[in-house]
């Protein structure tokens, strides 16, 4: 279990916990009786692994799969767009590879 006020586990089968209070880089937290130092600052609403997750494993939140790990994820690591992908439909960001950014690159005369 999580011995910190910064994170909350939503379901006992989850392999991630959700940040409910901003947690600064370097903060020591205890997950499953193991001390872990955060490598990144984690903002409210973001999630970290509370168990190690292998590439291809399902990431579990609310007790259900919310996608698959694209890389091995260590306990305490930020779980987000770089290591988790949807099993349904890709997510996008403002700067992601999509038609909008290609158009912008062509307007700005950059190589795509």
């Amino acid at each position: 279990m999580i011995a910190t006020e910064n994170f909350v586990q939503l379901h006992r089968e989850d392999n991630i916990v959700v940040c409910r209070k901003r947690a600064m880089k370097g903060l020591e937290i205890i997950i499953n009786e193991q001390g872990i130092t955060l490598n990144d600052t984690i903002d409210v609403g973001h999630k970290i692994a509370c168990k190690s997750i292998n590439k291809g494993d399902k990431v579990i939140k609310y007790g259900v799969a919310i996608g698959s790990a694209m890389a091995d994820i260590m306990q305490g690591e930020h779980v987000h767009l770089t290591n988790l992908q949807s099993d349904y439909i890709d997510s996008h960001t403002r700067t992601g590879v999509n038609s909008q950014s290609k158009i912008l690159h062509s307007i700005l005369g950059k190589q795509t």
Partner: protein
Amino acid sequence: MNAYLRADGRKGIRNITLVCYLVECAHHVARKIVDKCDDDSVHLIGFSGCYPNDYALTQLSQLIQHPNVGAVVLVSLGCEGFNREALIEVAIKAKRPIETIVIQQSGGTLLATSLGIEAVKKVQAATPIIKVTLPLNELVVGTICGGSDGTSGISANPAVGFCFDLLLKDNATCIFEETGELIGCEQIMAERAVTVELGQAIERAVHKAENYYRVMGYGSFAPGNAEGGLTTQEEKSMGAYSKSGNSPISGLIKPGDIPPSSGLYLMDVVPDGDPLFGFPNISDNAEIVEMIASGAHIILFTTGRGSVVGSAISPVIKVCANPETYRNMSGDMDVNAGKILEENISISTVGDEIYQQVIAVKNGQQTKSEQLGHQEFILTYKQFVPTGPSCLPTR
């Protein structure tokens, strides 16, 4: 006795006069009329397209006879494709005073604007004011999430779900929506359906949404969702889903369908047939408009990143999921659900607070977005086939 009894028997919680433009070319004149009336109860709505569309006609037909609406002024350029005669007929049948300004027949912008202002005064004077009580079993409440983040699904959304369960115990009608934001939740929703056939229809509706969004190239997932900690569509879906509470699902409706009886309804907002007109709903207010067209008196809007919108016609109660956002934008928020995360306050306590807000707003209390003058409205092209019989409960 704070509700308004309409001549067709429906009861509204506000007494709105609509000024409705029927093509973008009439938008400016319609806006000038509304601005010059300088009356918070005169709201601007309309449809920008010049090509006729059954969906747009259905939505505007339902909106001009919404129980919160007392009277209507239509603003037409004159040559557009919209079937304004059909709208006039709807208003007359629903006994709503209606006047029509046709700009090309009125001598242009200035004359049409002054005629429009007179028309607003005329229909307002012709609106009978009969105050009654609106019992909860006649109340329709819709819910939507906008600007969701990683807190939405663990604070504001389940609190709204708790409020929905309370309202449903009072035999109110509750609507949740955006099948594209319920991708991944289709099986659990199907299990909550009151009949097997309805469950199958819900699964088909979500699969349609998944296919539609795939063709569009984007899921219903904005960059701000990711900045707020959400990573995947199904993660966002699970959070959105919790707005629906735990009650059985009574029916599956399409935009503009009026629920035939009390209960919890899922609105299928994704067009039928081949993807034709682009994204199902281009922004949050498009979904709000559809729930209002289906009779919603009040909208519960949950937000994590911080939306500021309200709506024309029906009040929007904003429930803020993220405590940091609440501190930053409290002037726009009606309920702080972020305290669930920071102060260990239970979901049921905040759910009850939302329920009390619904009753207060029903009884006339203004929401923050109403006080700030938010009256957003958007209506675009879509196509639907009528709702099948297996989707609706028998009376």
